[in-house]
């Protein structure tokens, strides 16, 4: 199915400018990610965990939320989500380099553990799935205050097997809370395939057990994801409660820079994955349907390249926190 046509945009209430902005974010996500791999390979940062293959899912989902008003409890692959939520390439690279100016943690946390209160991005940890409960708690508190807030939270399909997933969905569903649970199913939990993780094979199917909608969507189709998440967002605002969305994604890279997926993924499979690259798919189809022109695409490439270069050079020049900064912010400082 064709991901982007003018008529499809209209159905979704999107302007062409908005579509191009989504493309910008997807491209930015990809180029940022590629840059971090380069930096890791050249020993300038110690670690990368990648969003490659999930750009369409992440940008499509995040674009349905209201920057500065809604809340985000993302997971470590959500580069595209935090960019749409308002994090800048400079801020993300400060985190990758672990510099003091890193708004997420001042260099305390590993890369991709984003946080920024002014953007309603909640600090995440590494133990998976804990953030789903925080998202539910934010929704509980927002309802108490009578605020119009919808909460985005995400995890991978492997992480959806953790007890906290069950407890979070149950609680959110019991109180019809405005939370969108966005599971990015890239078929692998590091090396463990879907068939050894998710009994039944469908994360979305688990929604029905809580009496809430479970939607499976093609995560490589940015507009399909946007449509599904927008609907969930609207349901949430109408007080109809949470939605569980499973986006079928592709993992184009190894799990992280510490992993080599050739140990457990045959060449054909990797080949097939690359062939289904959602960014290339989007570009090809959007150019074909005239949703985007060659010139526009070139412009975006140049703009993104410039931003990534600027962010890299600038961030790398920023200082580390002094060693003793490790002692700061254990408790509120009087």
């Amino acid at each position, binding site marked *: 199915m064709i991901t982007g046509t003018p008529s499809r945009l209209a159905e979704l209430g999107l302007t062409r400018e908005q579509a191009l902005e989504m493309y910008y974010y997807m491209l930015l996500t990809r180029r940022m990610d590629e840059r971090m791999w380069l930096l890791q390979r050249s020993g300038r940062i110690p670690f990368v965990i990648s969003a490659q293959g999930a750009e369409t899912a992440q940008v499509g989902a995040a674009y349905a939320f209201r920057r500065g008003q809604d809340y985000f409890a993302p997971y470590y692959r959500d580069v595209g989500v935090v960019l749409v939520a308002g994090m800048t390439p400079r801020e993300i690279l400060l985190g990758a380099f672990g510099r003091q100016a890193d708004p997420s943690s001042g260099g305390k946390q590993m890369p991709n553990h984003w946080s920024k209160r002014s953007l309603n991005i909640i*600090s995440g940890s590494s133990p998976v799935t804990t953030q789903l409960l925080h998202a539910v708690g934010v929704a509980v508190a927002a309802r108490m205050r009578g605020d119009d807030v919808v909460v985005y939270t995400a995890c991978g399909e492997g992480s959806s097997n953790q007890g906290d997933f069950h407890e979070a969905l149950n609680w959110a569903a019991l109180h019809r809370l405005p939370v969108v649970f966005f599971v990015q199913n890239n078929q692998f939990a590091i090396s463990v395939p879907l068939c050894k993780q998710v009994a039944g094979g469908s994360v979305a199917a688990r929604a029905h057990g809580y009496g809430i909608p479970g939607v499976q969507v093609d995560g490589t189709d940015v507009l399909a994801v946007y449509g599904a998440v927008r609907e969930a967002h609207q349901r949430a605002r109408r007080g109809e409660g949470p939605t569980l969305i499973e986006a079928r994604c592709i993992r184009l890279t190894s799990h992280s820079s510490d992993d080599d997926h050739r140990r457990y993924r045959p060449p054909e499979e990797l080949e097939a994955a690359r062939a289904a690259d959602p960014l290339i798919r989007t570009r090809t189809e959007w150019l074909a349907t005239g949703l985007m022109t060659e010139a526009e695409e070139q412009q975006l490439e140049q703009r993104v390249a410039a931003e990534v270069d600027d962010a890299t050079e600038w961030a790398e020049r920023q200082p580390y926190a002094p060693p003793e900064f490790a002692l700061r912010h254990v*408790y509120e400082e009087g």
Partner: protein
Amino acid sequence: MALLSFLEAIREALRQEMRRDPDVWVVGEDVGRKGGVFGVTQGLYEEFGEQRVQDSPLTESAIVGVGIGAALYGTRPVCEIQFADFIFPAFNQIISEAAKMRYRSNSDWSVPMVIRAPYGGGVRGGLYHSQSVEHYFTSTPGLKVVVPSTPYDAKGLLISAIRDPDPVLFFEHKGLYRAVREEVPDEPYTVPIGKAAVRREGSDITVISYGKTLHFCLEAAEELAREGYEALVLDLRTLLPLDREAIVEAARRTGKVLIVHEANKTHGIGAEVASIIAEECLFDLDAPIRRLCGPDIPAMPFAAPMEQFYMLSPEKCLAAMRELAQF
């Protein structure tokens, strides 16, 4: 002033803080219409409604995890874990999330949350309704751990905990709920977290305790006085952070230290207290540092004789105190 039981003092702290601040709310199993399995939250559901006194599903990890999220948003949840023994399903949320949120975000985010839990034995609760769990949390910076021993402190410390900007674990000994009463001011007041209190002056031995066993020590101290020895009794009140100054000062005063707690001995609170003393004022000591604690077994048995064997008592405290005094 009103004569309140330990349990009533806790309830009054909750009610007064909920009246003062609309962001304060209570969540836990059976805290609503039932008013809690011990009755601590009785009347709150009727006064504040089900949004601010929420019966949670039977899921401790969610009680704490949802509490964290609600605290991040700016409300002040008071989470009740029905029995301290059942706090372990929430351990990951407490240790990995609540304790580290401020640190990892450099105070951009914080978790002003209280986790209340009844603990302790002597109630025929068997292995899983008798445990003391404070020592599982005291090694984790980012948390505060409070264990009151009197109604006055229970009210004042709980109010401090609710107003505290960081996560506070508040452990209430079941055996004190209805057993101790005292005059408690009607108005709200705070007792500082992190400060121990000298409950009895004495020059012969120093006894350091908290929670229910503190009362055993005080009772034993009166008896010991009749035998001619005066015991200084220090109530730790807060276990994280420990009041180092008060501990060292109390140890110096007599040079003979006994630490008493209901939790099993090995790697318990007494270990850190003894280490602080051995670090700070070793040469002021006239006797080895003693610890009188529960036995090193997995938990407290149900049958009366074995439960009594586990539990401390004024008699057991007196024996240990006398031995130390005569050392």
